[in-house]
C-alpha cells in the first residue's frame, strides 16, 4: 500500500492564549512507494513523530491530505485506517501474557470479521513465529527483555495484517548490541511481510542502515528525501550533511574565488562556473587523502589507530568546531614528526554550501547515480535552512 502525504501541516495551539501556535510539521509532500521501509530522521522536535501520529490517525492534520493507495484517509479514525503502530515504550499490557497481548487487536473485530478463539490463537502464533517469540507465549511483558518486548509489540501490530506498519523510535529503548540485532530483524520482518513500513528515529546510523528511503526533517520542514547512500553522498544542504555520518562532516569557512574553492589561503578544489562568494565547505572524514603536495595544510594534533583505519586529528585556521577529524587508510603513512600534515581532497566527498541559506552548490566530481527519488527541500522552500 503506498502512502501519499499531500501538503501535510500540523500546528499546535500555544499553551497560553496569547502564545503563538507552534508549527510541528510544515507542508509535508511525499509519496511512499508500496512495500518500502522508510525512515523519518531528524533531531528531537523536528516533527517526525507528529508526522507518524498523523499517518496513524491519532493526530488530525491542520491542513493537507493523507492517502493510503487511492483512499483518502485524512478524516478516517485510526481504527479504520488499517495501521499497526509500535510505540516507543512498546505499550504492552502488563497484566496480559504475550499471547493475550498479540490476540488483543483481533478481539476487537466485530460482525462478519469476528474470529473464533482457535483462529485468533492460530493468527497470534503465526505473528509470534514471524518475530520468533513463539516459545514465550505464556510469559508476561515484565518477565521479558527489552528486545523480546519489542518483538511482541511488532507481532501485536502485525497480527491484524495492517496496510501500513508504523514504528515510533523502535530501537531507542534497547542497548547497543540489541539495537544492531533488532534493526536487522525489523528489516527481515518487513521484507517477509512486504508491508509498507514507516519508522521514526533520531539515530542516523539506524535510519541509514535499514531504510529503503530516508526522510531528513528539521523544524517541521523536510530537508531531503532519498536513498540513504545518495542522501549521504549528495546532501541537499549543510544541515543534512552535518546530520548524517559519524564522525560528522568537517565544516570550514571558505570562499569561491575565480573558479577555485578556498579554505583560508588553500585552494583545495575546483569550482568551475561558481561566482565569487563566501561559502561553507564540508569535507567528509573519509574525504581526506594524505599527500605531501596536497593543497590543504593542517597542523597535526594526534593520530588514533583503530585497526582497520587511522583517525587523524588536526587543526586548520578555517575550521568550524574544535578539530578536524579525518579517517585514512591504515596503509598510508603519517609523518608525525613535522607537526604538519597536508591533504588532497577526494572528489565527491567535498561540498560547498551557500553561506546564508546552506544550500549545496554544485561541484565537479559528483557522480550522480541511482538518485531517483531524491527531492531537495531547497527547491521548494528556501530560507528555512541554515
Amino acid at each position: 500500500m503506498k502512502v501519499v502525504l499531500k501538503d501535510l501541516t500540523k500546528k499546535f495551539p500555544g499553551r497560553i492564549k496569547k502564545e503563538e501556535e507552534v508549527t510541528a510539521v510544515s507542508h509535508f509532500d511525499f509519496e511512499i512507494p508500496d512495500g518500502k521501509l522508510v525512515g523519518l530522521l531528524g533531531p528531537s522536535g523536528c516533527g517526525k513523530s507528529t508526522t507518524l501520529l498523523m499517518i496513524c490517525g491519532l493526530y488530525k492534520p491542520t491542513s493537507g491530505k493523507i492517502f493510503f493507495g487511492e483512499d483518502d484517509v485524512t478524516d478516517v479514525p485510526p481504527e479504520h485506517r488499517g495501521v499497526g503502530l509500535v510505540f516507543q515504550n512498546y505499550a504492552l499490557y502488563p497484566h496480559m501474557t504475550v499471547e493475550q497481548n498479540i490476540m488483543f487487536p483481533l478481539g476487537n473485530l466485530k460482525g462478519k470479521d469476528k474470529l473464533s478463539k482457535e483462529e485468533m490463537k492460530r493468527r497470534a502464533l503465526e505473528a509470534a513465529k514471524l518475530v520468533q517469540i513463539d516459545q514465550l507465549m505464556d510469559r508476561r511483558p515484565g518477565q521479558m527483555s527489552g528486545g523480546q518486548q519489542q518483538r511482541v509489540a511488532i507481532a501485536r501490530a502485525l497480527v491484524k495484517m495492517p496496510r501500513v506498519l508504523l514504528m515510533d523510535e523502535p530501537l531507542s529503548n534497547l542497548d547497543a548490541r540489541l539495537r544492531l540485532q533488532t534493526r536487522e530483524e525489523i528489516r527481515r520482518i518487513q521484507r517477509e511481510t512486504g508491508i509498507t513500513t514507516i519508522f521514526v528515529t533520531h539515530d542516523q546510523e539506524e535510519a541509514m542502515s535499514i531504510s529503503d528511503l530516508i526522510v531528513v526533517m528539521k523544524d517541521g520542514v523536510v530537508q531531503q528525501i532519498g536513498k540513504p547512500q545518495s542522501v549521504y553522498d549528495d546532501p541537499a544542504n549543510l544541515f543534512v550533511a552535518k546530520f548524517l555520518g559519524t564522525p560528522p562532516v568537517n565544516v570550514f569557512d571558505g570562499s569561491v574565488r575565480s573558479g577555485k574553492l578556498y579554505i583560508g589561503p588553500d585552494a583545495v578544489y575546483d569550482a568551475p562556473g561558481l561566482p565569487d562568494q563566501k561559502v561553507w565547505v564540508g569535507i567528509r572524514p573519509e574525504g581526506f587523502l594524505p599527500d605531501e603536495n596536497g593543497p590543504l595544510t593542517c597542523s597535526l594534533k594526534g593520530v588514533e589507530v583503530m585497526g582497520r583505519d587511522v583517525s587523524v586529528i588536526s587543526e586548520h585556521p578555517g575550521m568550524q568546531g574544535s578539530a578536524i577529524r579525518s579517517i585514512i587508510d591504515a596503509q598510508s603513512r603519517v609523518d608525525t614528526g613535522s607537526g604538519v600534515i597536508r591533504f588532497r581532497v577526494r572528489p565527491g566527498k567535498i561540498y560547498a554550501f551557500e553561506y546564508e541559506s546552506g544550500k549545496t552548490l554544485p561541484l565537479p566530481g559528483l557522480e550522480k547515480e541511482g538518485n531517483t527519488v531524491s527531492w531537495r527541500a531547497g527547491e521548494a522552500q528556501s530560507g528555512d535552512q541554515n
Partner: protein
Amino acid sequence: MENNNKKAWLYLIPAAVFLGLFMVYPLIDVFIYSFEEGYNSASGNSFGTGIYNFNYILHDTYFLQALRNTFLLVIITVPLSTGFSLLIAFGLSSIRALKNLFQTIYFLPYVTNTLAVGLVFMILFKKTPYSDGLVNALITFFGGTGVDFIEGPYWARMFVTCFYTIWIVMPFKILILTSALASVDQNYYNAAKVDGTGSARIFLRITLPMISPTVFYLIITGFIGAFKAYADEVALFGTNLNAAGMNTIVGYIYDMLYGDSGGYPSYASAAAILLFAIVLTITVINLLVSRKHVHY
C-alpha cells in the same frame, strides 16, 4: 556491630514504649478479659475463666441485632460505594471542563464534620411535628406515601444508614481512584485506540486491571472501616442505638463499657475479640480472592 545494635534499640525505645503501653498491653488485656467471667475493673477480680462471656453475648439479642446490622452495612455499602466511586472517578478523569470544580465538590463530604453531616441528614429524613423531612416531602410530591426514616420501619432506617455511609466514604475513594486512573500511561489507551478497541472493552480489559491494586486496597480498607462503623449511626439515631435497633458491633462494645447499661468489660472484650476474628477472616478471604484478579 554490638554498639550499633544497642544504638538501634535505644532509638526504638520511645516508639516501643508507647506502642507497648497503649497498643500491645491493652490488646493482651482484652484477650484475657474476654475469658474472665464477670471481671470487675475496680477490684480487679473475676469469678473464674472460661467461654462464658462469648456464650452470653452470642445469646444477647442486642449483640445479634448489632451483628446483623453490621453485616448488612458491610455487604451493602462496600461494593456500592466502591462501584459508584469508580464511576465518578472515571467520569472525572474523562471530562475536561470544570474538572477541578467537580473534584472539589466530590471531596467536600470528606472534610465535613460527621455530626454536622448527621444533622443535615436528620433534616432530609427525620419526621418532626413541624415537617416530614425533605425526602418525604419529595416522595409525597410525586404521589408516594411518606415513611419515617429515623423512627420508622427497619428497612427505612437501614436505607438511611447505608445511604449515609456510602455518601461519607465516597470522597476518599474517588480521590484515590482519580489519581490511580491518571497514572495509567496514555500510550496504553492510544495503542488500544489504534487497534479499534471499544470503550467498554478498554475499561474492562485495560483500565480496570491497571488500577486493580488500588481498587483492592479500597475494598480491604472499606470492609475494615464498615465493620468498625459506629459514629455515623450515632449521628443519625442518637446515642441509644439499642433502643433504635440500629446498633453496630463497635456500638455494642461501647455500650457494654460506658453506656447506660455498661460496666461489663468482660462482655465488651469478648465482643471485641469476635469482631477482630470476623475482620481477620474477611481480610484473609479478600487476599486469597485478590491473587487471581489483582495485577501488580
